[in-house]
């Protein structure tokens, strides 16, 4: 990269369950709130930034210019351009790389990468039958003809079609896919519940010690992540019924992420720009790699990041032990367990075209302030939550500390990035 790209800081709203305390907020509202908090934290009101990239996985068609509209509602200069990107659950990390790459190329001095999702305000589509009737009514030349067309509406036509989280090519939901993967990699219920309990425990501790005081701005009266259950234990989690994988399944509502509402944003800049403005430089964006698997052909849907990790480490000449900290997005606890098992599996890694196993991870370095199981997972926001969190943690560890972020996404994709503390 020609220019050093640094993470200056981040901001997000607290995350909450769908239908929870943020249910009245639209994607536009949430994204604006995340931007405004970021602007306030870094004294950027009225400043024209190079570009803002944001996105949402569940998006109303009226929000075709979601990010640009949020910029206009925010305290940033209205001369700040923006674009929408979308790469399923990797959106927030992909927007980060988009802005980072432009900064690296010298096309931007500074920009914001963001992501947002409101599962409370998901776009509801009407059925094809109803759409045909409405179109016919619109085309009718006389009021009588219009009435006649509308009279064909039946109650069944009115059932709204919420966006499904099923994979278009397999018809399986993400959870069902992960249940298959979990079985293939012999992931136990205990392993999953432990990861979930740890996620809540670590997130609660981080809130307790004020770690999020400069990463989160309260929104709509909600000051902390609402999904967090500080008193959750493995025992409590073990009592929950399985929701994926049939009656013998091991995946529950406790070890799977909840549908969530929230937005997150990262301020990225060239080192020069950050220095000129006297802004913090937490970590440098080193590199990133994207990969995909052939899940319609039977591959594990959410293990896309494994090949990406292997290729990225090989390109950078790094080993797993070189990373002080690792963030693996907890789509499901089972995803984290199977990812780590895949990292350590010589044969599997070779099947991905890698030279050998990626390696074993020291679990003490994993998701040290909790992850999506406890925080929540507004799809597009998660990457933009992870980047500043890891950057701040690495910065606290001292210059040169390296960290890895791994995010799985629908469509069998995986995005992985490396950060290094400044």
């Amino acid at each position: 990269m020609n220019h050093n790209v640094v993470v200056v800081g981040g901001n997000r709203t607290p995350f909450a369950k769908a239908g929870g305390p943020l249910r009245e907020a639209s994607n536009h509202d949430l994204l604006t709130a995340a931007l405004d908090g970021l602007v306030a934290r870094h004294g950027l009101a009225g400043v024209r930034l190079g570009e803002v990239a944001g996105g949402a996985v569940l998006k109303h068609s009226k929000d075709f210019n979601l990010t640009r509209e949020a910029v206009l509602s925010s305290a940033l200069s209205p001369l700040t351009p923006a674009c929408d990107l979308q790469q399923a659950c990797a959106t927030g990390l992909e927007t980060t790389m988009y802005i980072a790459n432009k900064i690296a190329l010298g096309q931007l001095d500074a920009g914001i990468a963001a992501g947002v999702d409101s599962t409370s305000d998901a776009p509801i589509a009407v059925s094809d039958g109803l759409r045909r009737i409405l179109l016919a009514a619109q085309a009718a030349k006389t009021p009588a003809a219009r009435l006649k067309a509308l009279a064909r509406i039946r109650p069944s036509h009115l059932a709204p079609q919420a966006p499904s989280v099923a994979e278009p090519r397999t018809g399986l939901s993400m959870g069902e896919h992960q249940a298959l993967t979990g079985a293939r990699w012999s992931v136990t219920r205990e392993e999953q519940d432990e990861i979930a309990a740890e996620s809540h425990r670590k997130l609660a501790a981080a809130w307790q010690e004020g770690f999020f005081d400069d990463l989160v701005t309260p929104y709509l009266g909600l000051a902390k992540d609402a999904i967090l259950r500080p008193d959750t234990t493995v025992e409590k989690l073990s009592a929950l019924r399985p929701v994926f994988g049939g009656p013998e399944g091991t995946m529950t509502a406790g070890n799977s992420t909840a549908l969530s509402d929230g937005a997150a944003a990262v301020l990225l800049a060239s080192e020069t720009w950050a220095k000129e403005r006297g802004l913090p430089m937490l970590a440098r964006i080193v590199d990133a790699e994207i990969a995909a698997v052939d899940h319609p052909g039977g591959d594990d849907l959410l293990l896309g990041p494994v090949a990406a990790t292997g290729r990225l480490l090989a390109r950078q000449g790094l080993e797993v032990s070189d990373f002080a900290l690792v963030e693996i997005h907890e789509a499901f606890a089972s995803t984290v367990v199977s990812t780590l098992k895949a990292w350590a599996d010589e044969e599997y890694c070779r099947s991905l075209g890698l030279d050998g196993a990626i390696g074993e991870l020291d679990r003490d370095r994993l998701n040290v302030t909790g992850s999506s199981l406890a925080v929540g997972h507004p799809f597009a926001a998660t990457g933009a939550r992870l980047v500043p969190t890891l950057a701040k943690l690495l910065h606290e560890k001292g210059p040169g500390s390296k960290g890895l972020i791994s995010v799985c996404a629908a469509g069998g994709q995986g995005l992985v990035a490396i950060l290094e503390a400044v």
Partner: protein
Amino acid sequence: MSVLEKAFHSPVGRKVAARAGLAEPPVLRRGRTYPGGALVLAQIGEATLGARTLDVLGRPYEAPVLDGGEDVTPGYGDRIGAVVIDATEVTRIDQLEHVRAVLRPAVRGLEGSGRVVILARPAGGDWEQRAVARALDGIDRTVAKELRRGATSNLVRVEEGATPADVASTLEFLLQGRSAFVDGQTWAVGHAPSVAGISERPLDGRIVVVTGAARGIGAAIARTLARDGAEIVAVDVPAAGESLAAVANEVGGTALQLDITAPDAGARIAGLVASRGARIHGVVHNAGITRDKMLANTDQSRWASVLQVNLAAQMRMNEVLLDPAVDGGVAEGGRIVGIASTSGLAGNKGQTNYAASKAGVAGLVEAMAPDLASRAITANAVAPGFIETDMTAKIPFVQREVFRRSNSLSQGGSPVDVAETIGYLLDPASQGVTGQVIRVCGQNLVGA
């Protein structure tokens, strides 16, 4: 709003209130505005300080009409805007007659939100001189109570050696609308070796830290100081972050979500300022809480939380921020402003903890001022009376209405009034004002 409160503000309620002698309170002149009418200067004896100070401010003035014992009291043809009485050479009881002769026609002719400003000397000299100094105080406080339609009277004790440049910012503040809710007060101005000139944007490019900036008086302070050019570092507890961010963005400042009782609060603020390669011009310790209970019901925790937030926290922060070795600390020529309270100075039922903390703030700035003088850092406090904010909206309506009216301006103050007084203290031109506690209370009947 309670039913009672709604009824009170209804048209019928207003009529009843008017008959009961509760007239609509006057609308006060505010902001960086001078009175509309003429400015009258009365120079008693050989005094020239007032004249020279008005010259510094570039304000033209007229000679006073004097009441010489005629049958009909002589008057001003038009309403006058303000009368400045330069009493710095008044040392004898018989000279006080001159003050009366000036004031009698002046108070009759004063416009709404007009001003009486008395320039005097600190108590000193022989017995009579000391008695006279106090006598002028008595005149000021009484005139303030008699004036109507939002006019105020205040007295400035100008120390020997203080120059017109030293006094200018104080006289400007008192004549302007910025001092709207400061009434019947007395404070001192001394000489400073170097003092900045008067400016419309005295805080241009200077960093000012305001704690408790998310709402109420703190938010008004942030806005007012930003108007005067300051770069605001707005501090409030993380839970108040949403409104804090809105205030910071509105004033083009920076939001810092921080509980001031955190042990590293001072260091966190200094760190933020240091990263910009800057130092702090002013710290406004505005964050404050109440936990009211009669002393008989006040437990340890109510006591501790109020003393921690309102007093101990700012002492700890001051220690860090005033350490010259700390990067991002208070610069030479900097400012510390505390927020006391009339309840603290006068005592208030049910507020022992609060009064202890707020009187403590007054004591703290008085103690700090001389110690910081060598670095040209001033330390002062403002003591708000009844100010209309979320804090006072919690007071039951009837009691609130009584509090509102129990001052010479018959109304609650606005957060802006507190903010403007703080802006005056932060002004680089106010270098000679230190160790003072200025009440912004409309001359509340309660207290000193």
